[in-house]
């Protein structure tokens, strides 16, 4: 689609260019929306006060002339704003100039750009247009938004904004060798079916149902004679609700990830996806801060995983944007990373946690655990069937044991691998030179049993992301702290870019 366009006979990127003329309409509409209330309110008030009689001059002026004036103003404004809004690439910088009265020129060094996103909604696809969003580090909103440019211009801009000095496939003529992978339709449906988002959809459906539950006098509905509340009816409704939620989650996955394609062009990863709205995100490889392998509870039994990346450009916005690939077999992960992100292709035998950490996982001693214990005790004392309430802490304890079994860590070359489970099992691979901060946290109970929680923080979005492993041996945690500290000696000593030893160690 967008990315497959070729650079043939296009005008130079160094000339200032405007958005597509459709941009005028978009700008005018935005202006209209902002002015809608002041434009229509006086008219409405007049109409309400004086009745629908347009013959009087005053009424006509408020009702018609003001909105008409605002319309004309908005169109003119749209034209002017469009005319003054230009962008071009000058040397190693992107320059954007805009503003009618207050003109501002923004200069963004290409090396500061964290990601370039090209997206097309349904309407934009019909018109052959695209929206370009350019992200720099640490922002909550994109630094530059070009709402409507032609697909060709978008592609050209994207190519122009790649890292200087890196030959892309077009120039190098080796497009065939660049790794690329497309999510098959079968895998897309499989990803939707096992995403576990049904749980989220379920709570949505459930809360809507409970709204209706109070509003509808069920006992008066003739189709449901008598045995509403009978076990079979309840079961039937339950099954229907779950099926509906599950279908919704599959649909959501199809909409977001249909045609998911990942490819690597030189030092840039391109992620293209979406059924109705197509999006192409381009992510410089050297901006990736960590890789996460996520095995959801419905995927792990089938050996399926999802790959995510942390990047300085994203994190606060939709978590969708960090999906590197929605569905892989577990055995495919290593070859996949070798092809796309060789730095992160590490294979490790994880070191599991000491046995004395087991009870700490099984018995939650935090507020959540206490609240749960209190609630079940209360249930037990208050209701005849209340002992069933103890199922909750029991389930939590079993989950805790499961979490204990899966938790582990390893250090391979310059990479730290942490694995933990909340509900999904997550394996995070962090390069040492990407670590912003490392922490050891010890509660009084942990101090007594020689355990510690180890946390590494990496840049992600505006605030950073923390990966934490609970209850590892306190001395191991302190050794990890030594290990994290060792990198900076090299950096500080040479004062140059880090070229740390470790490529990959596989066995």
């Amino acid at each position, binding site marked *: 689609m967008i990315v497959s366009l070729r650079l043939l006979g296009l005008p130079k990127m160094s000339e200032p260019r405007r958005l597509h003329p459709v941009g005028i309409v978009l700008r005018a509409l935005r202006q209209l929306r902002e002015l809608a209330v002041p434009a229509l309110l006086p008219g409405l008030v007049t109409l309400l006060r004086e009745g629908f009689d347009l013959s009087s001059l005053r009424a006509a002026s408020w009702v018609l002339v003001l909105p008409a004036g605002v319309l004309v103003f908005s169109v003119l404004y749209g034209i002017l704003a469009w005319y003054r809004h230009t962008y071009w690439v000058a040397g190693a910088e992107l320059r954007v100039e805009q503003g009618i009265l207050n003109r501002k020129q923004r200069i963004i060094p290409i090396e500061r750009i964290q990601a370039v996103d090209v997206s097309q909604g349904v309407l934009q696809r019909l018109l052959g247009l695209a929206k370009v969003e350019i992200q720099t*580090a*640490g922002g909550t909103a994109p630094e530059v938004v070009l709402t409507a440019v032609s697909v060709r211009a978008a592609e050209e801009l994207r190519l122009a904004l790649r890292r200087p000095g890196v030959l892309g496939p077009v120039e190098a003529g080796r497009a065939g060798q660049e790794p690329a992978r497309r999510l098959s339709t079968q895998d897309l449906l499989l990803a939707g079916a096992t995403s576990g988002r049904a749980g989220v959809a379920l709570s949505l459906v459930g809360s809507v149902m409970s709204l209706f539950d109070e509003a509808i006098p069920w006992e008066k509905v003739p189709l449901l004679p008598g045995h509403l509340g009978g076990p079979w009816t309840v079961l039937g409704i339950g099954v229907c609700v779950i099926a509906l939620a599950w279908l919704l989650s599959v649909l959501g996955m199809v909409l977001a990830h249909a045609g998911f394609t990942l490819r690597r062009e030189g030092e840039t990863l391109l992620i293209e996806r979406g059924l109705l709205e197509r999006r192409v995100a381009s992510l410089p490889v050297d901006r990736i801060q960590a890789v996460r*392998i996520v095995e959801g509870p419905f995927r792990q039994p089938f050996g399926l995983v999802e790959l995510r990346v942390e990047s*300085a450009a994203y994190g606060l916005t939709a978590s969708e944007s960090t999906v590197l690939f929605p569905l892989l077999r*577990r055995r495919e992960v*290593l070859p996949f990373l070798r092809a796309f992100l060789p730095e992160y292709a590490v*294979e*490790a*035998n*994880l*070191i*599991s*946690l*000491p*046995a*004395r950490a087991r009870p700490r996982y099984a018995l939650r001693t935090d507020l959540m655990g206490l609240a749960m214990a209190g609630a079940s005790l209360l249930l037990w004392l208050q209701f005849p069937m209340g002992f069933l309430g103890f199922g909750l802490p029991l389930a939590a304890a079993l989950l805790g044991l499961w979490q204990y079994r899966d938790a*582990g860590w390893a*250090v391979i070359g310059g990479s730290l*691998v942490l*694995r933990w489970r909340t509900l999904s099992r997550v*394996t995070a691979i962090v390069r040492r030179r990407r*670590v*912003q*901060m*490392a*922490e*050891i*946290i*010890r*509660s*009084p109970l942990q*101090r007594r049993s020689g355990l510690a929680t180890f946390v590494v*923080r990496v*840049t992600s979005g505006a*605030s*950073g*992301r*923390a990966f934490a492993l609970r209850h*590892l*041996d306190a*001395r*191991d*945690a*302190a*050794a990890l*702290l*030594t*290990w*994290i*500290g*060792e*990198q*900076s*000696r090299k*950096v*500080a000593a040479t*004062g*140059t*870019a*880090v070229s740390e030893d470790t490529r990959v160690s596989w066995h």
Partner: protein
Amino acid sequence: MSSSPVAGGDGRLALDIAPRPEPPERIDPRALRAWQVSGAISAMTTLVVALAVAAVAWRLGLPWPLACLPPLLAIVAVPFWVWFIPRVRWRRWQYAVSDRDIELQQGVLIVTRTLIPMSRVQHVDTRQGPILRHYGLASVAIATAAGTKEIPALAVEVADALRDRIAALAGVAEDV
């Protein structure tokens, strides 16, 4: 990823690196007095609020044991605020700044050690509120792309020197 974890972690060091020793430096002893003063101010404020709540509750006709509860709780909290917590906090606070990294250890009940590689420091500030200023103290705030950490209550000269040193060291190291 291999899914079979190696057994271990018990009784031996899994990583063949010595555990990092605790950071040696302590913060200025005057910090204790500064914290006690700010603790006392917080305690007084809370006490006043609690008394107001109690007065309102009394007026609304709540039974007096219930109405007296907030000020009682506030009074019980005073020694903690003014005496116990600042003391433990001071005893726990340790830090170290080397050419390579910055390490902080802090916490009252839950103790946190933080390691910041020098190359990750984005900028350093010194900060001083009215209480710290009165005692000739200042804190040093160290910002990275993943958040800011603070070394509280150093003597002003020490804080300024530390700030300049960290800035120089961080400037040498590589940019993110």
